[in-house]
């Protein structure tokens, strides 16, 4: 894409991308730290994650005000306008991702009180996948790389699949012994947060497609999180 005649316009658009990159990097680190805190029962790290969430929120506000100002002053059209409108939406997706990371960190306090769970490993696995999705979808955004965005978009299926498996086994533990319910419920929320993070990364992937191509991604969205249909089945089938 050739540069704008007015160079300061390009500089402003680059600044928006920089902010999104910084915000995304922060959210990705937040998720990684939250997962580590959970796995290691590290409440100090968890506390740091909870407190750092404000930084992500602050950048979101910065993206929003810069974007609104550019739209007001430059009256962008076509790919520039799509890019700016999507920047606001992507910032809001990243803000949600960071919120989920902070929520996972908060649950570390409760989970560190209970016995150790093997299933933490499964949680860590989902988290690694989700982190990879965030990292790659941000790269796709920064480089206008539609192929990479579509790849991320497809990867959400894997996250959903792992989430559904974890859901089943946690449900089994709860049915086996009611004393497991508190910890398993927290783990379930952690897993659900990760699954939602995957969805947000998927949304960003769709926006990258829209910005670059000018039309929405036409394929049907992958959906492997079948847990909402499975509760009845699982309750009737104790093997899970």
């Amino acid at each position: 894409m050739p540069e704008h005649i007015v160079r300061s316009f390009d500089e402003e658009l680059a600044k928006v991308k920089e902010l999104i990159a910084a915000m995304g990097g922060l959210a990705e680190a937040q998720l990684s730290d939250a997962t580590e805190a959970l796995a290691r029962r590290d409440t100090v790290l968890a506390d740091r994650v909870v407190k750092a969430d404000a930084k992500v929120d602050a950048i979101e506000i910065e993206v929003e005000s810069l974007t609104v100002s550019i739209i007001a002053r430059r009256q962008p059209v076509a790919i520039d306008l799509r890019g700016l409108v999507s920047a606001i939406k992507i910032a809001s997706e990243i803000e949600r991702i960071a919120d989920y990371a902070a929520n996972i960190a908060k649950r570390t306090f409760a989970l560190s009180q209970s016995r150790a769970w093997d299933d933490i490993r499964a949680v860590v696995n989902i988290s690694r996948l989700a982190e990879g999705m965030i990292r790659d979808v941000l790269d796709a955004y920064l480089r206008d790389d539609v192929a990479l965005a579509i790849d991320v978009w497809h990867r959400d299926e894997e996250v959903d699949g792992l989430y559904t498996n974890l859901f089943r086994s946690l449900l089994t533990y709860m049915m086996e012994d009611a004393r497991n319910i508190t910890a398993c419920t927290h783990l379930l929320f952690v897993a659900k947060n990760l699954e939602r993070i995957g969805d947000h990364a998927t949304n960003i992937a769709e926006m990258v497609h829209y910005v670059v191509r000018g039309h929405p991604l036409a394929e049907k969205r992958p959906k492997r999180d079948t847990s909402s249909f499975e509760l009845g089945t699982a309750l009737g089938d104790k093997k899970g």
Partner: protein
Amino acid sequence: MTVVTSHRSPEVAGTAYHPAAGGHGIAVEIDKFNLWYGKSQALFDVSLAIEKRMVTALIGPSGCGKSTLLRALNRMNDLIDGVRITGKIAIGPQDILDRGTDVIQLRKRMGMVFQKPNPFPMSIFDNVVYPLRVDGVRDRRLLVETCEQALKSAALWEEAKDRLYESALSLSGGQQQRLCIARAIAGNPEILLMDEPCSALDPMATSRIEELIDGLKADYTIVIVTHNMQQAARVSNNTAFMYLGRLIEYGDTDGIFTNPTEAQTLAYVTGRFG
């Protein structure tokens, strides 16, 4: 996530884009129109279908041929020495480029508004009814009625009704331009041609003209040439982008400004040209 995109008709660059069915039909059909000023060719194989009772904007950098194309529609280029043309411009069944075409009659079907307001040095009333007088209308009541109607249509009646017999030159620039629009529509044309109608006006006067254009399209087919892309985006239904005498892309305005097909259009509308 849902993203709303424009509903645009498919098109192929270089061929006549036919606006989607369901509109009011085609007012002007330009087919492979070429124009030379002496030896230099100004328009190359331009094919364009202009929709009835819609606003069609012609945009493009200086020298792209948009004003030349607009002037071809009422054969104003005939006035320039050494102009040669080929192709066809049809209004209904009539090819207006035909030798037999009565140019005076043709121009009656077209109202033209220019860049600089050009009221005649006479009263507001005399300006508006000028086209009728040229046609020989002497019926005072008809003149008065037409004057009122035209001034109302041009959104100038309230400001002008108490000073109809004052000089048109006493009006402000924006009012003068609306007077010129009133005069253009007093002759009851089918098509209004506007060549940069707001470029000499301040933003408030520009907004009034744009509001007027929006209202006038209920009754008239409007073709507007503008350097102001935001204006084209605001007032037009269809936009044609021209460059170096060629029609690069033609489509509904929404599509041209949100997701143009051609790289040159994209570069121009986003300010990457040059």
